[in-house]
């Protein structure tokens, strides 16, 4: 039995759980959209656009993408922590990763709510 006194900010555990929670949401959405698309087989522009234009679809797709970006942030942050040793370069890559993902989130919101 190891009795450890846990100290610190705990963001490691929070991110560990967040990575798994977002994974479950994405897995469920993937199943849902895969069955939906294989069933409907939208072949024209109108049918394809229709798939994503209902209120629920926008909401679900946006949630999926937000989960994807949070999940990707944790994964890519782990990569920089594993392979990039110089602190300045690592910090720069962290910041760039966040900026790119936040930018993508704005972009997809714009695409979805213009439908």
């Amino acid at each position, binding site marked *: 039995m190891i009795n450890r006194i846990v100290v610190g900010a705990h963001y490691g555990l929070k991110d560990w759980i967040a990575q*798994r929670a977002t*994974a*479950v949401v*994405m*897995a469920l959405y*993937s199943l849902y959209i895969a069955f939906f698309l*294989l069933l409907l087989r939208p072949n024209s*522009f109108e049918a*394809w*656009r229709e798939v*994503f234009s209902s209120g629920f679809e926008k909401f679900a797709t946006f949630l999926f993408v937000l989960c994807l970006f949070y999940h*990707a942030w944790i*994964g*890519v942050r782990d*990569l920089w922590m594993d392979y990039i040793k110089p602190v300045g370069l690592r910090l720069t890559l962290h910041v760039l990763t966040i900026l*790119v993902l936040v930018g*993508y989130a704005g*972009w*997809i919101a714009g*695409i979805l709510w*213009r*439908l």
Partner: protein
Amino acid sequence: MADTCQTSSKPRPKYLGLAEILFQIKLPLPGKLSILHRVSGVLLFLMLGPLLYCFQLSVTSPADFLAFKSFAANPLVRLLLAGLIWAYLHHLCAGIRFLLLDIHVGIDLVSARQTTVIVFIVSLALTAFLCWRILL
């Protein structure tokens, strides 16, 4: 405990270069699944921007939809899309295995190896099926 420390004559820690990692180290199958989980994640992350752009084209106007369709008809683009379908499915299936390991399902050596084989079979079969339905 002290004995085992003294008898090991190998210098520790051992630092590995990229060449050793790529050609000298023989990873067991679960290790290959794990590194491919990372590789597929990186591939998907790098392609997020282009994929978002493709999605935007496909839902914006009939003309952009057709432009995307003819772009996706290119064999090289199809090959890349097939690769991304594989990356997504491998990441998903291996991820489900990792989630099960997290809750202590299948952590003994025999079942850990079996689930690895299952992940490879299922993800490759699903990749083949989706490429057939979407790309062919």
